[in-house]
Each structure stands twice: as structure tokens, then as C-alpha cells.
């Protein structure tokens, strides 16, 4: 009978010896609660900004807050902060693809909205009437 092993990766589980161990949680119950609290505070902030009449800044502000909430959910609740590189890289690849798609789309929309090229000074077309 061998002594209990520390590292799950090197110890075949389910075989005689230390016996299988429960996977430890990377985040404590308190940590989970505080994360939820932070999410609620951010949601309340977003809700409050709705009535602050931010105008054109309203959507960027709301999206930044939403992004912060999503990052909290991904890193803590989904445990991405504690995952191995293989998993983080796999998911990051998807995000890189989205970044490319969004960059191309924004590039399109922004350039589409620009008025036609202006004539250089001194070469203004003469308009009748």
C-alpha cells in the first residue's frame, strides 16, 4: 500500500493506494460569492448609466461594463484563469477570429459613413445656382 500521492497527473486514479481524490476547486465559496456580488454591482452601474444621458458614449460605456462582466464570468465562474494553456489557446483562437471579423466590419462601416472625398482647396467645383 503506497502513500497518498499529491499530483493527480502522475497518480493513476482509481487504483489501489491513495485512492481517487475529489478535484479541488480553484475558487473558494467566498470567492464565488464576491464574484457574483461584483457582477451585480457592475449590472447596477450599467443600469444607473442608462439615466445619465451619456449620449453617444452610452453604448461604448455599456459595452465596456458588459465586457468586464463577461471577463469575470469567464475567468472565475468558467475557471478559464485556472485552465491549462491548451484550453486557453483553443478558446483564444476563437476570440482572435472574432477580433478579425469585427475589425473588418468596423473598417467597412466607418469608411462607408465618410462623405465623398473633398476637393483640394482652390479647386472647388463651381456649382450653378
Amino acid at each position, binding site marked *: 500500500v503506497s502513500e497518498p500521492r499529491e499530483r493527480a497527473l502522475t497518480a493513476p486514479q482509481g487504483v489501489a493506494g491513495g485512492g481517487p481524490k475529489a478535484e479541488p476547486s480553484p475558487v473558494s465559496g467566498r470567492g464565488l460569492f464576491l464574484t457574483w456580488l461584483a457582477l451585480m454591482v457592475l449590472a447596477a452601474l450599467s443600469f444607473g448609466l*442608462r439615466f445619465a444621458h451619456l449620449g*453617444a458614449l452610452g453604448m461604448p460605456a455599456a459595452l465596456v461594463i458588459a465586457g468586464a462582466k463577461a471577463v469575470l464570468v469567464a475567468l472565475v465562474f468558467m475557471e478559464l484563469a485556472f485552465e491549462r494553456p491548451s484550453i486557453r489557446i483553443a478558446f483564444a483562437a476563437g476570440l482572435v477570429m472574432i477580433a478579425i*471579423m469585427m475589425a473588418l*466590419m468596423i473598417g467597412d462601416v466607418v469608411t462607408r459613413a465618410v462623405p465623398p472625398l473633398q476637393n483640394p482647396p482652390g479647386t472647388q467645383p463651381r456649382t450653378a445656382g
Partner: protein
Amino acid sequence: MTAPASAPASEPLHAEHFEDLERQAHAARLGMWVFLASEVLFFAGLFALYGTYRVEHPEGFGEGVLHNTLALGTTNTGVLLLSSYTIALAVHLLRGGNARAAQGLTALTIAMGLGFLGVKATEYVEHFREGIFPGGSGAFFVEHTTPGIAMFFTLYFCMTGLHALHVIAGMMVLAFLLYKMRRGDVTPLRSHPLAIGAVYWHLVDAIWIFLWPLFYLVPGGAR
């Protein structure tokens, strides 16, 4: 190499083709994350559409946001954030050995998913009653002709409808895991299936985090 002869009398917790449970759990999590990356890309296409049309028609989109019921959308945000916490806690407690509490919290999470869908259904019924249908059909669009408002509600139905389908799928996954926990297939020693199901549920929450400002919260410079 573990020779089959050295296998214990009790059934091993991991599948035959894996060396141990840790590797099996990692493979399962990796598979889920690759799937989630594809899910995020899937939704990103719709978010891109929304962004493009909103830039073109800020007034119509602003009017649409103001027409939606902020209280209901905000309620659903709170419900999903809380359900994310309860399922995260369920995973945490299951790993800590408290299987009964984990089952209770999983059931509670499913119930909150049901509550979310109830609110969503109430909204859809209200929209249909007002004559708001996808594709800009319905009596509402005869009176409300601001450019872009039909696009807003079509995207609203597409994106929240697709999200609602994901909520339903998540509830089915969690219900299956609840059954597996009751049967003793998902236990404190073999908890990774619940952790993976929870990760999917969190994604559904994360997507709603972005849908909330787009469809309920920010009318833009309109008012």
C-alpha cells in the same frame, strides 16, 4: 503503463481509453471550450449585423430600445447572473463532497432558467399583441416607420430567440446532469461532467450580458 491485471476490484472512475480521470476531464473540458469558441463566433455574426445596422439607423434602433420593457430585460439579467452563481456554487460544493446541496442548487438553476423563459415568453406575447413580428410585418410597423425599427425587431427576435434556445439547451444539459448525480454517475470523485455543463450555462449568461444593453438598456443619443 497500467496493466489490466492491476485494476482494482471496483470500477475505475475514468473511461477505458483514458489513462486517468484527470486526463479524461481535461479532454472533456477542451472539447467544451472548442465548442464554446464556435458558439461565440456564431453569435458574433449577429452582433456584427446589429452593429452595422445600428450605425446606419441610430434613430430606429433607439426607438426600438425605448419600446422594449427595461424592467423585464433587467429582471432577466438579474436572474441569469444569479443562476450563474448557483451553478458555480453547485460545482464547488460537489467537489467538496456535498452532493445533496449540489443537486439542490442544480435544480434551482434549472428553475431560474425556466423563470427566464417565462419572462421572455411574456415579452414575446406582448410584442405579438402589439403587432410586432419578425421581418417588419405586423400592424406596429404601419404606424412606426422610423428607418431601421423593423431591422431592430427582426434582430431582437433572432438574437433573443437564439439565446432562448441556448437557455433551453442548457436546462436540458443541467437536467441530465441532475439525473446523473441522482444515479450516482456524477459524484464528488467524478465531478467534471457537472463542471462542463456549468461552463456551458455560464456562456449562456455571458451572451445575455451583451444582449441586455443592446436591446433594453442603451437607446443611444436618441433621448
